[in-house]
């Protein structure tokens, strides 16, 4: 090493400065990336809260030009769609998850697991087209059922993969202990393994619900939307997301105000589900995205 000590010291100083600089850049990137979260939440609160009142939750949409009105039908519609979709999506998802966890390593299970992963990557608008072709067309019109089927298809792979992951986290010894006591295999799976994993599975289900609660695209031509009160399974039904979309792109200031109020309610529901779950399972669960 023939480099002069002074030159060497300068070089080390430069490398340290460069390192600090790059690390500063990563912090800056994080700030920029998170900025929209705070801006959007701030706009939602300021613009949404001023248009939010009791009538929003209890009244029907007002005709164009008339002030006031609410989204009572859309709130009920969203709840009905979520309920119906969960009924299908969760039972299918948990069933498939139980199967995948029990038959790890079998070729069919590997194919099915891959299928679930692939399904998570299908754009939600394509799922909407699918529901249109298998439900709307045969039934002759837009319906609650079609919307729920579309949402269930989105939900199913999420629940399947989370269920499987959570079941695999249960220690093998627990299962062996139950089997050694003479408990049948299926009861061991349901009453010992699944019950131990219940918290994690519930987390996955709630996150899947939060995900479908915010979906708009697959509802556009399945559940369609409805300006009137309807809870029928076979007729079109309103939903918060589609209502917010329709109002947001409308030219009427009153509707646009309602869109902000609807967006605030929607975001509150979704973030409350998300926050609640995260708070309950701090640091433990790693669920499928």
């Amino acid at each position, binding site marked *: 090493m023939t480099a002069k000590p002074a030159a060497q010291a300068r070089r080390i100083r430069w*490398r*340290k400065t460069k*390192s600090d600089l*790059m*690390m500063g*850049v990563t*912090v*800056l*990137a*994080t700030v*920029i*990336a*998170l900025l929209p*979260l705070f801006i*959007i939440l701030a*706009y*939602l609160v300021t613009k949404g809260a001023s248009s939010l009142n009791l009538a929003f939750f209890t009244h029907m949409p007002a005709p164009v030009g008339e002030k006031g009105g609410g989204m009572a039908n859309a709130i009920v519609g969203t709840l009905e769609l979520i309920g119906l979709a969960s009924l299908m999506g969760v039972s*299918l*998802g948990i*069933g*498939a998850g139980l*199967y995948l966890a*029990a038959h790890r390593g079998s070729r069919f299970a590997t194919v099915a*697991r891959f*299928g679930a*992963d*692939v*399904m998570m*990557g*299908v*754009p*939600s*608008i*394509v*799922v*909407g*087209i*699918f529901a249109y*072709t*298998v439900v709307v067309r045969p039934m002759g019109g*837009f319906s609650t059922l079609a919307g729920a089927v579309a949402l269930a*298809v989105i939900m199913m*792979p999420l629940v399947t*993969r989370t269920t499987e*992951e959570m079941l695999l986290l249960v220690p093998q010894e627990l299962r062996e202990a139950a089997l050694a006591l003479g408990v*049948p295999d*299926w009861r061991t799976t349901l009453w010992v393994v699944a019950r131990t994993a219940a918290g994690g599975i519930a987390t996955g289900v709630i996150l899947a619900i*939060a995900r479908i609660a*915010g979906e708009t*695209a697959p509802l556009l031509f399945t559940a369609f939307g409805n300006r009137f009160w309807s809870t029928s399974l076979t007729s079109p039904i309103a939903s918060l*997301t589609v209502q*917010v*979309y329709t109002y*947001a*792109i409308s030219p009427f200031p009153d509707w646009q105000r309602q*869109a902000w109020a609807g*967006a605030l309610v*929607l*975001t509150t529901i979704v*973030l409350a589900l998300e926050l609640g779950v995260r708070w309950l399972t701090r640091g433990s669960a790693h669920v499928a995205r």
Partner: protein
Amino acid sequence: MGTFHVRLLGDRIFNLTTLLLTLVGLSILVGLVIALVLNSALSLKAFGWGFVVGTDWDPVNERFGALPFIYGTLVSSALALTIAVPLSLGVAMCLSEMAPVWLSRRLGFMVELLAAIPSVVYGLWAIFVLGPWLRDRVEPALGATLGFLPLFQGPHVSVSMLCAGVLLAIMVVPYVAAVCTDVFRAVPQAQREAALALGATRWEMVRIAVLPYGLSGVIGAIMLGLGRALGETIAVAMVIGNSPRISASLFEPSATLASVIANEFAEATSSLYLSSLVELGLVLLAVGLLLNIVARTLVLRATQGRFGSEG
């Protein structure tokens, strides 16, 4: 041994039920592909491969070509990734290499919240806040400095390819950042210690030990982000302007595969029109599936051992 048989019967019923549910799930995926192919048969027959390269989208005269939408999808996604990838890498490095655990957990949580905001809310915000801001501040500035490029020419409007791209970038960052963070965290600690022991600074350690080790995972994360951007529908439909034209300028309105389906599907009047829209969905599905399969394989390999089979 009566009870023994009853037990076996219980196992068999349980096994069969879960197998059946799995089969139903798989058949939905297969059915989805079949349904899209069958329902685009009309348009497949009428236009053949010309559909993918056709530039006309004329419902009145029933001439349908997908190229403007394929172009819009590719350009908006490319623009989104150009902005989102450096940001996401920065976030991931900050979360895995820089921030202390308590801060990293909180920041990671905020990133997840960003991913949880419904896309219709992003769209609403973009219509009233992001779009006008880009039109009044960013587009004039870009036009003044880089206006010699065809990318930044033309009138300033709030619904544009630029707005869609920036919005997509904001929406994609949390996904790419989260996966990249997982990938970086899966890099063995020994790699970092070896670099530090050789006298590397923190940044040099990231560059020579963390980044190369996680490269395939990072590429997978970017592809997952691309998949999200390609398939994102409602937020894009709200800000892109929905005009089926190919134009070099980012300031012009455009349309994507997903946005045109969202806008026109419920109003498609003829069966050929509907069939063409389904075929657009088929194109979207094919690209989306391909991306996802490759991406998940890459991410799986990069994070294996840490989360088991988690993608």
